[in-house]
């Protein structure tokens, strides 16, 4: 008896846990069904018979209430509850409210263009779709000039404040921090419709005082480079992705920071392992390492430090020709850095 009660209790707890889990995950089992528009259209009910007031000014949603349904057609409802409570998708209504709040739209101005044919824009009705708000591509059928000139404010009240993310190739999902470089390069003008200069500069600016991961430290979901314990990881990441640092930072950045923090520039600390530089290729590591990530060498040995390389690799030097096979440059020999190794009058080797 006691065991049966325990089993029932465990079963009830499991049901509650499942229900809670479903609620947390956003699963809805009893969502209202979408309105059967198609059925009404096929039955010959015109759109404006239910959706009244389209020719009047104002920001009404033009949604019919129970009275509209029960006045003529459904005079004897099958249930005492509200019609729209079960037969209208809350998601569709939410989309309409969102559209009203975000868009400068007036049905009245579109009636003559559409010639009374609502399905010219609301073509999803024919497919019985739950979402009745036309996609933006439908607007572009006529408003192609606004699209071409990226004048989002022609329709949107304030795109930046909407917080609506793009749905096409600029959808901010997946690993957007990595992806945005390849996507935004061809769509900079679209990015600018939401993001101000300060947004790009907060990571790409040369004078940025602190990255968003620091300035917005209380928001762990805010996109930012150098997230969390990056200062610990940065050496591993830099060596695994040669050149990545150079896309934003000047080569001197490594050395300036390391010297300031006392981890470089110390006379008693040799950063290179034994066998770094030698007279034979077998005990030479520096050439290969320099080619893997020349920016890391340039960080310390740039500027006046380049003379260290020139000492061996200048024309006729013991270090030999540092250029790889097939090397070419459009720089004249008299320009920097060529003239460091190729004194005027010396031949290109």
């Amino acid at each position, binding site marked *: 008896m006691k065991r049966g009660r325990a089993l029932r209790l465990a079963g009830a707890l499991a049901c509650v846990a499942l229900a809670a889990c479903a609620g947390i995950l956003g699963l809805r089992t009893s969502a209202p069904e979408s309105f059967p528009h198609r059925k009404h259209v096929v039955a010959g009910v015109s759109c404006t018979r239910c959706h009244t007031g389209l020719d009047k000014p104002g920001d009404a949603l033009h949604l019919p209430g129970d009275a509209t349904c029960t006045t003529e057609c459904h005079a004897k409802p099958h249930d005492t509850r509200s019609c729209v409570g079960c037969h209208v998708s809350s998601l569709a209504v939410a989309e309409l409210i969102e559209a009203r709040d975000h868009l400068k739209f007036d049905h009245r101005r579109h009636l003559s263009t559409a010639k009374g044919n609502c399905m010219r824009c609301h073509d999803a009705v024919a497919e019985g779709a739950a979402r009745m708000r036309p996609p933006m591509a439908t607007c572009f059928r006529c408003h192609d000039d606004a699209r071409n000139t990226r004048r989002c404010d022609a329709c949107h009240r304030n795109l930046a404040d909407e917080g609506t993310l793009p749905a096409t190739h600029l959808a901010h999902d997946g690993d957007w921090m990595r992806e945005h470089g390849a996507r935004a390069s061809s769509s900079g003008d679209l990015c600018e419709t939401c993001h101000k200069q300060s947004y790009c500069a907060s990571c790409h*600016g*040369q004078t940025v005082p602190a990255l968003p991961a620091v300035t917005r430290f209380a928001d762990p979901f805010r996109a930012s480079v150098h997230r969390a314990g990056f200062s610990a990881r940065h050496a591993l990441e830099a*060596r695994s*992705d040669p050149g990545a640092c150079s*896309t934003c930072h000047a080569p001197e950045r490594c050395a300036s920071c390391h010297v300031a923090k006392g981890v470089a520039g110390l006379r008693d600390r040799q950063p290179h392992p034994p066998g770094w530089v030698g007279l034979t290729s077998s005990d030479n590591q520096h050439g*290969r390492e320099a080619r893997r990530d020349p920016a890391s060498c340039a960080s310390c040995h740039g500027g006046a430090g380049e003379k260290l390389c020139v000492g061996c690799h200048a024309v006729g030097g013991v270090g030999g020709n540092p250029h790889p096979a097939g*090397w070419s440059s459009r720089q004249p020999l008299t320009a920097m850095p060529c003239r460091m190794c190729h004194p005027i009058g010396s031949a290109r080797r």
Partner: protein
Amino acid sequence: MKLAIAIAIAVAAPAAGADPLRLRADALASAASPAGLLVLEAENTPRAGLSAEAVVWMGGGRTPGEDTTGDVLVIAVRAQTRSGRANAQVGRFVSTLGALRPAHVDGAAARLRLPRRFDVEIFGGIPVVPGLATSRSWDWIAGARASRQLGDSGSAGIAYAQRRDEGRLATEELGVDAGFAIAARHDVGVRAAYDLANPGLAEVALTSSYRRRSVRAEVYGIHRAASHLLPATSLFSVIGDIPSQRAGTVVTWRAAPRLDLIADAGARFVDTDVGAELTGRARLRLDDRGTSALTGELRRSGVGDDEWTGIRGAARIALPRSFAISTELELVVPDVDRGHGTVWPWGLAAVSWDDGEWQAAIAVEASASAEYRHRVDVLAQLCRRWGKR
């Protein structure tokens, strides 16, 4: 620069107090190595087609006066014609011209939209150097991009930029980019930059994604030649290089309305070394708007002796009365510790309050790494916003 500041003030001043003016002041303080930062942001749209924005900051260290510094991040005035067919901006801004690397400049930029959906963009100016008192040499950078729009929101273009430092050619780059939706569910983005000063491919990035219902799959590839990213005036730009590559695929699955699962499987190639790039991430929103959320991430990254494994978790829970608590934890285990410790933990716990106009936050950050055996810091932030956001 002074002209840009004068114009920005002139544009903003008549409308000060008007509805479109937005101001934000952020004060940040750190306790471990005592430092403070004050950031001021302003943006204004005094009339249609004309806007201005500015971000300036001032920071100070432990010794008053000695370490105090400040700078301008952005100060730009932007104007566009009523039709939107031409626009221009002047001041300090980040120029992003197609496949070329973003350039932070003091200068001007303009865009002209031509018939048949063709666009022309140009920019020019002096590359920004940190520090207001830095003596400026006459370095300059200029570039242009011609493009044609594709589909509703895509385009393809070709760009060129040249930078000269004290008259010497530092960068000369040609870029090609394209990004557009191929079909309702399939899209692509690609950019390639070619170094003209020392001819060679500098950087290529490709991404292509396909989405169907709750699943999105992306294939990506990146090729980067480090020496071609250095200024051509550097000796290290002539030694040739070993390009590195990264390729992989990311699958994002909305397993439930509030639950996203993301898997990234790829590889890195540097010279003869190959490393796995694996990430598994889950994100659960605890409400429909995502104001409360949890995320967990497992990652394997790096190449050769620089491979590491990491785990990261973050949470933000909204509390009553505009309060929120958030935390972020990370553990990194390098394959080769080099005497710098076998585990590098990092954690942050914060309490914040945001009533729309005022925002305040305080956090404790703790870590152990190659740099510090252990480090504890306290961060504080106070923010005030004016104008509708």
